[in-house]
């Protein structure tokens, strides 16, 4: 058996391209897509102090992509002075959500209980979404650290989705679908999405139908959001590597096809 096969060369090539681009560390300017702009405008146009539910509907596996996405939107909401109630519909998103909210709130000097509260995880996402439509305090009698829901200044005035301006689902899978089909369709809550690039096309029909109000996707979306916010973050830092990796994949596809058609021609000629 050969120790170094063709696939190893493609792996090595990708590693060199990504690492090289990251070491070069050149910041790229980019056009902000209408999708990101719409999400930004939506959050920006909400009256200051609006209450938003931020749902961390992702796992640890997608954290490198989710972190810059979540950070950029959280920064915007805290900067605008919106009040956030954090929840998680996946067990793994629980700690990540807690940490991300804590870190971003600290950047803007926001106070736990007044500007944000983190409620944590509930299993069975459909039941959790529907139950919060009836009463958030009954669904989450205690916050993430075991303190009563009614204890905080922020949560005392929030009974259910009627008191919430929007739900922002930060997702790496199809959980936002449930926010739309259960939360939005049943209780009329406005749903916003900040999702990984792989999930973008899944949500396009909901965006087109208006069931999802706005959506930002992927590391590129995070970079665009950072540009709108005029802050530096993980999205913009990764853009040269992202573009280089795309070009590398395009090159591999082209090379694979050239070799394929050449071999077919050769086969016909023989």
């Amino acid at each position, binding site marked *: 058996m050969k120790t170094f096969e063709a696939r190893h060369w493609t792996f090595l090539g990708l590693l060199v391209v990504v690492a090289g681009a*990251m070491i070069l560390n050149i910041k790229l300017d980019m056009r902000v897509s209408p999708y990101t702009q719409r999400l930004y405008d939506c959050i920006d146009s909400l009256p200051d102090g609006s209450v938003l539910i931020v749902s961390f509907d992702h796992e640890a596996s997608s954290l*490198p992509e989710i972190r810059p996405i979540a950070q950029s939107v959280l920064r915007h909401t805290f900067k605008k002075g919106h009040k956030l109630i954090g929840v998680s519909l996946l067990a793994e998103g629980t700690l990540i959500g807690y940490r991300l909210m804590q870190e971003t709130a600290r950047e803007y000097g926001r106070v736990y209980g007044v500007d944000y509260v983190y409620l944590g995880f509930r299993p069975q996402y459909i039941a959790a979404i529907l139950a919060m439509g009836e009463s958030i305090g009954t669904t989450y009698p205690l916050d993430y650290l075991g303190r009563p829901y009614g204890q905080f200044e922020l949560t005392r005035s929030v009974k259910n989705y009627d008191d919430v301006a929007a739900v922002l689902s930060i997702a790496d899978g199809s959980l936002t679908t449930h926010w739309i089909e259960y939360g939005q369709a*049943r209780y009329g809550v406005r749903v916003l999405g900040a999702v990984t690039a792989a999930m973008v096309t899944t949500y396009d029909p909901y965006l087109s139908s208006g*069931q999802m109000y706005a959506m930002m996707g992927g590391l590129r979306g995070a970079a665009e959001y950072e540009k709108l916010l005029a802050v530096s973050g993980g999205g913009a830092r990764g853009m040269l590597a992202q573009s280089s990796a795309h070009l590398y994949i395009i090159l591999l596809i082209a090379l694979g096809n050239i070799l394929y058609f050449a071999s077919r021609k050769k086969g016909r000629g023989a």
Partner: protein
Amino acid sequence: MDAGTLIAGILTLAILTFLYRDNPIYKMAEYLLIGVSIGYILVVAWTNTLMAILFEPLFSGRNFWLIIPFALGLLMWGRFHDKTSSLSRIPIAFMIGSGAGVAIPAMLYGRTLKQMSATVMPLTDASGVPDISGLVVIVGLISTLAYFYFGREHKGTFGKAATIGTFFLMIFFGTTFGYTVMSRMSTLIGRMEFLLTDFFKLTN
């Protein structure tokens, strides 16, 4: 370098060794990952859920109605023994039934009807100029549905519609593939950023 970064860096490299081939270092990391992940789920399910919405309100809040889901939950544990495993059908029936009940209006209204009504778009813009985009959506939707309808043989006009549907599907798969590549690369970039900046300290 702090201990956390050191451990995270070593474990990241251990997982990356799989790129060469399956090996004991990778396997060790893989088993550790599975163990820690399951331990994590146990803790979160216990502290953040069962304590919060069952034991605390039941024992401290004296909400005795909660004996019902408690009993249903215990019946679920009947699965641990062959003799009692059929008892778990009761909580499963409760969950399946409730799930099916809430799914009907959601699937009908939240998904099917809403998506259908969104397809009916004006075929001209405000100034009366024909808008090809709306037509593309209608043709795409009908032809793709035709492709997925297997109750009739894909022949004649129906077959042609189904063939058009395959092209729309290919466009969708291509778009999704493109975005999936972006997603995978973003994850890799995130890990590389950790390795280069925090672990090897090659970049700032």
